[in-house]
């Protein structure tokens, strides 16, 4: 039997242990700690708040005006979340049914519809969780910021499941890079960065679950982030053109395709299709 929200409980607990080790957290009042760990709107699936940010809202006494405005934002987020989850996600999920063939064009259609379904389902849930916490006076951070408008893969992870990717940035990626710098593990910055992205995303894949699809998803994104880094640092074409309109548009388009292909892996569909092809 599973424990509800165990993986998200782990994030909130582990970050506190690391920050205590770092000496940033010096005291842990029992009531506030319980409130943070078991905060029900975000208990089962995030967003992942930070204890020191949570603390500021926990001790804050809001004025009437300020609270009304915050509660209003909360209600708005809940309603928007309902539209996302109960109308849009459901609709995209239904359409996914039309693309269950094994032809290549079905895979493309499935990838896009699954991507939009996943976004509206999870972003909808997240909005409702954030909205509920606003009403309770806790400004839980947002989890999504127009992910399909990302201009490159790094930008995508600044927009998709933000609290998770920032958690990984702060508690895995940054620390791995710092270790590498101090121990001089790699010859060049690019090697170090590439290794950092691979390790970071592979662990993120593992966290989603120990299935071939999730592991592949992690490796895929690690590789894309590493390639993005190498390309942006090395390519004179990139440096010359990056601010041009046409380049930005092309970059957005390529990014969207890469993102959607990632979702095809994530959904388990890609490996399923490849197996079917093998028989």
């Amino acid at each position: 039997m599973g424990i509800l929200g165990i993986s998200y409980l782990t994030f909130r607990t582990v970050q506190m242990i690391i920050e205590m080790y770092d000496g940033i957290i010096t005291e842990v009042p029992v009531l506030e700690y319980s409130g943070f760990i078991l905060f029900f709107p975000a208990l089962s699936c995030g967003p992942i708040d930070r204890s020191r940010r949570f603390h500021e809202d926990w001790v804050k006494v809001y004025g009437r005006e300020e609270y009304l405005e915050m509660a209003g934002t909360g209600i708005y987020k809940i309603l928007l979340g309902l539209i996302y989850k109960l109308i849009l996600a459901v609709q995209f999920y239904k359409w996914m049914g039309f693309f269950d063939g094994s032809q290549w064009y079905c895979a493309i259609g499935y990838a896009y519809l699954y991507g939009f379904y996943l976004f509206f389902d999870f972003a909808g849930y997240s909005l409702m969780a954030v909205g509920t916490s606003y009403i309770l006076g806790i400004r839980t951070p947002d989890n999504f910021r127009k992910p399909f408008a990302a201009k490159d893969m790094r930008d995508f992870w600044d927009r998709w499941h933000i609290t998770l990717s920032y958690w990984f940035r702060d508690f895995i990626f940054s620390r791995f890079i710092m270790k590498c710098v101090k121990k001089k593990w790699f010859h060049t910055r690019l090697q170090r960065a590439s290794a950092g992205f691979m390790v970071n995303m592979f662990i993120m894949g593992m966290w989603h679950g120990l299935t071939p699809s999730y592991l592949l998803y992690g490796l895929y994104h690690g590789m894309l982030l590493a390639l993005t880094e190498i390309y942006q640092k090395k390519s004179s074409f990139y440096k010359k053109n990056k601010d041009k309109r046409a380049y930005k548009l092309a970059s957005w388009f390529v990014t969207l395709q890469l993102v959607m292909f990632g979702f095809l892996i994530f959904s388990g569909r890609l490996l399923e299709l490849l197996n079917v092809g093998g028989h």
Partner: protein
Amino acid sequence: MKEKILNMLAEICEDDIVKENLEIDLLKTDLLDSLGFAELLALVEEEFGIVLSPSEFQREDLSTPAKIIGIIQARG
């Protein structure tokens, strides 16, 4: 100390502009990303023995060379 920090920053950002304009926004200009930020923290620890934790600050707290110098000096 200030000069050393600026040299580190110039090396990480691969641009000497950070030495000249201490108020430049390192985030908006893409000069300092998560990677550069982690490298900076490691170098600061090595050079000055000042340990800053990656999750301790919001990125906005360290968005310009001047702010970075301020925080490191306050810890020094």
